[in-house]
């Protein structure tokens, strides 16, 4: 991690000296590789298990919410479960009785026809559900097609090879997103209407207004330029959406929305499309026929630049996902260590650690929302920028990272 940071710093310095687009792209590529490898390493432990091991996992998976969680394996299992989306909203479970306190959520499947039923039918993965002659089973928070006995076959990679229906269920994450959307709508609608009666908002609007101004003046305006108005709506939405979801991840509700690759993918995809559709002539020219460099270089640069188009939103996706996942893993691991060790020294020590990391995570929650929004604004800004060729120092203040 330290060498990582050092590399970072060195490159940044180098970049400052050169201030050339090509370098930025190289840097972006490098970053991509690095940010890629980080989650990959953390997952290696999980990828290794052979099918046989998975079978034992299956055993524990069925009980992971039933028995008390006090061993290393169980804690790992529990964290894994927590990081994933869930088809019911469980606040907590009673280890002794195996009772879950929460509420089920609707399951919506598209499998040759729309199938809707309540997730309570799965009994937290214990039972196989039959719908219109098809059997479904909830296994590791995912729904698989199965037979009446609920058999799960494993592929070579150690993952279940059973077919999966298109799952449009209102899962825990979807429900959270909906609630956050409603919350955001209520908050900002009330702020908007408060301007009708008075020019200065009161109450909670006083908190929200500076944030809105912050996003507008410090993220959108300097990075996009004079056409910022078109994009500021998206940036504001994304910023508050990510931030609130990140913060909700810190609550005991135990939701992990932004640490989900599908969510960050959707967010990054929006940025990707906005950037591509708002790209002007200059933008495409700089990609396919870079002005100001010799022809062989132009040919060399075109594929790199083209790759850059995809790498940029990809880095957005991975960055948010990896950061939030890492935060959740760390906090839950520290909490897990308390129950693993179960003594009077480790307990308070890890409790203190958890608080420390939680405070950092609060910062990270904001930081990641900020970075995502900032970089989105930056990419949009690059696409709509009116450049004159041979720009020597005008992009000095554009951070790449």
């Amino acid at each position, binding site marked *: 991690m330290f060498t990582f940071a050092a590399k970072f710093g060195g490159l940044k310095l180098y970049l400052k000296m050169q201030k050339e687009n090509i370098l930025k792209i190289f840097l972006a590529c490098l970053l991509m590789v690095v940010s890629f490898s980080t989650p990959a390493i953390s997952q290696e432990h999980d990828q290794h298990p052979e099918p046989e091991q998975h079978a034992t996992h299956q055993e524990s998976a069925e009980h992971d919410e039933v028995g008390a969680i006090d061993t290393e394996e169980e804690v790992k299992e529990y964290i894994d479960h927590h990081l994933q989306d869930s088809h019911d909203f469980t606040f907590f479970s009673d280890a002794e009785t195996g009772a879950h306190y929460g509420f089920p959520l609707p399951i919506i499947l598209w499998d040759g026809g729309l199938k809707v039923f309540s997730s309570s039918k799965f009994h937290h993965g214990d039972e196989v559900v039959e719908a219109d002659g098809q059997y479904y089973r909830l296994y590791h928070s995912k729904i698989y097609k199965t037979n009446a006995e609920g058999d799960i076959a494993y592929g070579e990679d150690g993952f279940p090879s059973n077919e999966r229906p298109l799952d*449009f269920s209102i899962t825990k994450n*979807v429900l959270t997103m909906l609630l956050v959307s409603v919350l955001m709508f209520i908050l900002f609608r009330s702020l908007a209407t408060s301007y009708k009666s008075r020019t200065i908002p009161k109450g909670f609007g006083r908190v929200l207004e500076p944030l809105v101004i912050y996003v507008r003046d410090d993220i959108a305006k300097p990075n996009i330029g004079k056409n910022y108005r078109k994009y500021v709506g998206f940036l504001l939405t994304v910023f508050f959406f990510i931030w609130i979801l990140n913060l909700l991840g810190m609550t005991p509700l135990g939701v992990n929305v932004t640490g989900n690759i599908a969510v960050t993918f959707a*967010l990054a995809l929006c940025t990707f499309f906005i950037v591509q559709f708002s790209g002007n002539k200059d933008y495409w020219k700089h990609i396919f026929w870079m002005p100001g460099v010799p022809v062989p270089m132009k040919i060399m640069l075109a594929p790199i630049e083209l790759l850059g188009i995809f790498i940029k939103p990809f880095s957005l996706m991975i960055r948010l996902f990896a950061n939030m996942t890492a935060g959740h893993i760390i906090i839950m691991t520290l909490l897990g260590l308390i129950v693993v060790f179960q003594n009077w020294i480790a307990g308070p020590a890890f409790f203190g650690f958890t608080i420390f990391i939680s405070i950092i995570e609060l910062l990270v929650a904001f930081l990641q929302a900020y970075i995502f929004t900032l970089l989105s604004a930056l990419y949009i800004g690059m696409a709509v920028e009116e450049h004159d060729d041979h720009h020597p120092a005008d992009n000095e203040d554009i951070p790449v990272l």
Partner: protein
Amino acid sequence: MEKLVNDFSFGLFFWQLLILIVLAFLLWKFAWKPILEALSSREEGIQDALDSAERARKEMQNLQADNEKLLQEARAERDSMIKEAREIKEKMISEARAEAQNEGDKMISQAKVSIKNEKNAALAEIKNKVAALSIQIAEKVVRHELSSREEQQKLVDDMLDDVTLN
């Protein structure tokens, strides 16, 4: 990576995309747009207020400068008026003095003339009287001469001694 791919939930992706687009649209229409408009109109209002305050300040300054100028002018005018008045006064005095001098001179010369005239008249009268006296004397002398020559001479001498032409 395989785990990531395996974990990728298309349903979640679908919902996220849908929610995000709908949310962005709704918020833009009902929240961001009015908020940003209100903010920019407020900022414009503040800017306007500041500008007009600046203008007022400048005007005030101009006004003050004008006042100062007027005051200066008034002062200068007053000074010049005083100076003028002084000049006039001096001129009047000198004129009056000159006139008085003239008049005096004139009067003196007139007096002199009249004195001269009087004197001349007096002399003429005296001459006349002397002549008359002379005639009288001559008459008397003549009468005496007739008696005695010495007597006559003595008389003439006495007479002449008596008469002094003063």
